[in-house]
């Protein structure tokens, strides 16, 4: 049983992040403020080649269009 998301190159963490994000979006408005805290992502990643650091770029598990729209 091969998972559909595995065939497109997603790993399990990305898959569960998307599922978690969908679940968070369905929460009632009064709980949204508390739940939004779990989503903020400020970390930056820099790839290193041969002892030199690259430019830091924002890291996220998944890039979704909703993020760009916001």
């Amino acid at each position, binding site marked *: 049983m091969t998972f559909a998301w595995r065939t497109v190159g997603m790993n399990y963490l990305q898959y569960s992040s998307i599922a978690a994000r969908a679940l968070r979006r369905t929460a009632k408005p009064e709980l949204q403020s508390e739940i939004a805290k779990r989503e903020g992502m400020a970390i930056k990643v820099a790839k290193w080649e041969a002892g*030199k650091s690259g430019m830091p770029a924002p*890291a996220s598990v998944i890039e979704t269009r909703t993020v760009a729209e916001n």
Partner: protein
Amino acid sequence: MLARPAVAARTAVFVQTRNMATLKEIQTRLKSITNISKITASMKMIASTKTTRAQRAMKVARAYGKVSNDFVKQAEVEKAAEAKELLITVSSDKGLCGGIHSSLARQSRKYLAENPDAPVVVLGDKAKVQLQRAYPNNIKYSFSQLGSTIPTFDETSAIASTVLNDKEIVFDNAKLLYNRFVSAIAFETDSIECFPIEQIVEAPNFKAYEYQDEVLENLNEFLLANSLHWALVEGHAAEMAAKRSAMENATKNAGDIINRLTLQYNRGRQAVITNELIDIITGASAL
């Protein structure tokens, strides 16, 4: 007869001016150190509130880590003899927290001295700066903007996912170096081992069951994220506690210096007054 009081007056004036300059210096120092002690006291307050919050999050995150731990223990997974290991150093960007970052950097350097080919992923700028000096070619990824808030599982997934998706980094085991929260005034640098699928499959208690390969890969990724999340949150709690005690020590030291300087200032002030009195009395007696 006239010369002696004049000489006495001149030396008295000289001593007076010297004391006055020192008095002004002491006053400036006192002002600046009082400011410093106010800043460190407020930083201690902030750090103690962050510690309580971080400790609560740590209790929750321990449940994540327990999943990986219990699974590995129950299955009795063992480390392979020649496993390629990836070192993940879990530190942060913020300073003024005592020996947190230097302890991590020291352990990382010790490990890299024994395994000079191991790839390294550094979380946090403080450890990155230290490792970049000694082993720049081992570093594969560095993550920054960590340490101001309690890590979320989303952030942990981002880190783990970046490492897992990169096909250039070949590793079997992952070794997570982090600071374990021992108490509000003590921490200990510790490591968590994350095993690959091959080792899990070889584990004696795991072999007894049927499994599907695809599910195993999911489990592997999930276990790495779990352990990493535990290390991140616990490291954050340890850092906040260390920051609190470092700021408390700084405030106490500043208070000691303030007391010492105040005494010195008062003594200096009294010496100036005494000298003035001597001048007046000598002058009056000369008349």
